């Protein structure tokens, strides 16, 4: 009975912490800046779709709406959401160091619950940001060009895109939190975080041999493009075929999430001074 009550108490505490973290991210300047950019990208894509997408219809097979329309914005959306995830993760810990984090850890909550709450809150926020962005892109394209050929196919593939990016962003948020906890000053943490992200996205450093499986960027792109021809955007290939090839990479990403969460719990547990 006591164990049950303690567990319920923990769940309530985590839920409250997550809700608090979620609210904090909504009005964060980084969120506003990134969302502003995503809206600009969606608008440019929507406007361009009026003339660009019909040109593909005469020679390209499959649903142009997904194959060209969504794939054109996919890289930029992924890039900006990844930046937001890592930075918000980093600031949620490092930015808190001298203020709320110290107060938070004097409350009767376990340190791991603080990590879990922040992790869940950030993840939920990133899921909302990604879903809203892709829906906005789709809506503008539907208004400017036409709707997808099959609503069912579109829903499945859009959900897959959103979930894949959500996994990558959650992992990056966790890495951001870890960097935030490892470095004593916010200045150091943020410079290291930004450098890590740039190396992840712009260099081949992460693509060497087994090291590539540690790169959220690499694994994420393998989920989306399982092979050269079997990609989530290619509607001429059945969704199930893509899913079968993408699932192992998605599973790897989930394992990465669990590992980074455990590491974060260990690091925060060993942190004497916050």
């Amino acid at each position, binding site marked *: 009975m006591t164990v049950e009550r303690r567990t319920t108490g923990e769940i309530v505490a985590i839920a409250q912490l997550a809700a608090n973290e979620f609210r904090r991210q909504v009005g964060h300047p*980084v969120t506003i800046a990134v969302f502003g*950019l995503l809206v600009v*990208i969606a608008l440019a894509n929507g406007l*361009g779709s009026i*003339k660009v997408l019909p040109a593909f219809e005469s020679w390209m097979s499959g649903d142009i709406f997904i194959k060209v329309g969504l794939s054109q914005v996919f890289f930029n959306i992924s890039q*900006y959401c990844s930046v937001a995830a890592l930075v918000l993760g980093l600031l949620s810990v490092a930015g808190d160091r001298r203020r709320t984090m110290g107060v938070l850890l004097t409350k009767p909550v376990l340190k791991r619950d603080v990590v879990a709450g922040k992790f869940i809150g950030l993840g939920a926020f990133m899921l909302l940001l990604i879903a809203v962005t892709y829906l906005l892109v789709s809506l503008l394209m539907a208004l400017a060009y036409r709707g997808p050929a099959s609503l069912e196919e579109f829903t499945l593939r859009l959900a897959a895109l959103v979930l894949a990016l959500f996994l990558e962003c959650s992992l990056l948020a966790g890495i951001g939190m870890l960097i935030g906890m490892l470095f004593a000053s916010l*200045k150091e943490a943020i410079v290291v975080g930004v450098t890590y992200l740039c190396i992840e996205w712009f*260099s081949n450093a992460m693509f060497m041999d087994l090291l590539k499986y540690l790169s959220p960027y690499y694994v994420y792109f393998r989920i989306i493009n399982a092979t050269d021809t079997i990609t989530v955007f290619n509607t001429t290939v059945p969704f199930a075929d893509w899913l079968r090839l993408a699932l192992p990479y998605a599973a790897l990403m989930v394992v990465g999430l669990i590992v980074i969460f455990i590491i974060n719990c260990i690091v925060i547990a060993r942190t004497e001074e916050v």
Partner: protein
Amino acid sequence: MGNTLVVAEKEFKDLLSDRILLVIVSAFLLYILVDLNNIRNLLDAGFFLKDPSVTQNNPAANLAQTMLNQITFMLSRYGAILGIAVGFLSIAGERHGGALNALAVKPLRRETIIVGKTVGALGFLVCVFTLASAFITSGLLILAANTIAPVIGEFLARVPAAILTALLYTAVFFFLSMLISLLIDNYAFALILSLLAWSVSGLLATYAFAGYIATFLGDEKGLGSLIVSLSPDGMIKNISYNALTNFNLDLWGCLDRMGPETFKLAAIVIVLLVLSFVAFQRRDIA
């Protein structure tokens, strides 16, 4: 002048002893090393003999073209990150730590401080650039000197132009980061904003953005090229593809074609430099 040099020397030493910056510089060199390894793999696979994207039926020129591209883009891409970090640490980092405030109350003119800091930070960037350029150029020569032997004179003559282009590009983001750090009090946000500004520059140079807007407005080629040429990323792309790597042009022809885009990059650097100086003079930096 004496005080400016003292501030510059201090800035240089501070940056040199900053352990985070040393991590970034190490990452820069690692990044180059890994890319050199990729080029070696491509060479082993005979990629440059059959690459359909290259424009010339001359393996030596093809490879020299790729190497010049690598020098420009590797140095500029990572140089931009370094420039942003140095600009941020010089201003925002010291603002946050109170060091800048302490310096501002000393019997020094504000222009002495900003000129000194800029000279010191630029000196640091030039040193890292020299090291990275020597690293990448010698690495590429070790890997491929035999193949590019027929055009090695032409290649080496263009290397300084490639390095200068990358340095100008880096200076754009160094001064932009400096300016943003001076204007925005929240220093973490200042760094993120600098990073986003850099990525927007890249975005403007992509077809998915510039091409789409231009197509919508009914002039894909003319307007698209104009949008691309407005961003620093578009400028270095134009320099690299239209001039530096075009071995059909002689050296003077290449420099002549580089001129307008290089001038635009330099103009952006000067505008950002002036704005940073004005912001430093007029803003309360405490």
